[in-house]
């Protein structure tokens, strides 16, 4: 007997850690990983609410989120490889072609 609210609070904590990592990390691969962490936190909320409403629609939504996350990871990592070929760095502070 765990209150649903505890699962939601856990998801909020994971989401906030994802936001902090997104802002603090300087490596573009790690920033990408923190996006995956935020997606996972939202998935946990979907599953918890799906349990609460006794329906599988939330779980199917999580399934689609997983599919889109897999596609996003493939394309994003290919972009990172192309970026590394051009700039020879993974530090986002040095990737400032559009800034100056």
């Amino acid at each position, binding site marked *: *007997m*765990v*209150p*649903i*609210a*505890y*699962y*939601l*609070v*856990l998801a*909020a*904590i*994971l*989401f*906030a*850690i994802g*936001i*902090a*990592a997104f*802002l*603090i*990390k*300087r*490596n573009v*691969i*790690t920033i*990408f*990983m923190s996006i*995956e*962490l935020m997606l*996972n936190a939202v*998935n*946990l909320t979907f599953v*918890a609410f799906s*349990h609460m409403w*006794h329906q*599988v629609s939330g*779980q*199917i939504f*999580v*399934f689609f989120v*997983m*599919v*889109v*996350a*897999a*596609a996003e*990871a*493939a*394309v994003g*990592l*290919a972009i*990172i*490889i*192309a970026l*590394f*070929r051009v700039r020879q760095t*993974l*530090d986002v*502070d040095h990737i400032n072609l559009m800034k100056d």
Partner: protein
Amino acid sequence: MQIALFIIFGLLAVAGALNLLFQRHPINSALSLVVVMMSLAVLYWSLGAEFLAAAQVIVYAGAIMVLFIFVVMLLNAGEEDRTHGSKIAYIAGIPGAAAIVCLLSYVFLSNRQQLGTTQLGGYLSSSVSNISEISHTLFTSLLLPFEVTSILILVAILGAVVLARKEL
């Protein structure tokens, strides 16, 4: 029983996420993200989503994280260095994230009576299993979105191949 499972794996997930935040080397961050995803799979299972627990382990912890670690090794990514930009992010990011946690926790915990509690072993009252319920919905009323996602995956494969080519 279930509260013990929740506490153990919830703490494991939070510890893994904090480790992702504080480790400097990308490979350590990737491995702690695997810990987070595995503990989330256990939490999905305790919420009665067996299919998603299996899919979480196979798709996230298996496929996506292997792709991440593969790219980290391919690009030989080293430790990140602390720069001026990241100090500003420390000042703005930590309080912002803490404010989001406080706000969301307040909303959720003040409504905990309406949100109810979980029961172990799923919630579907009839004898159908979780997987058959999901597949029935997925292949009848949601067939079109399911087919569209397969086209999305195909486009993503083509895009990844084109972007990672040598001559861009």
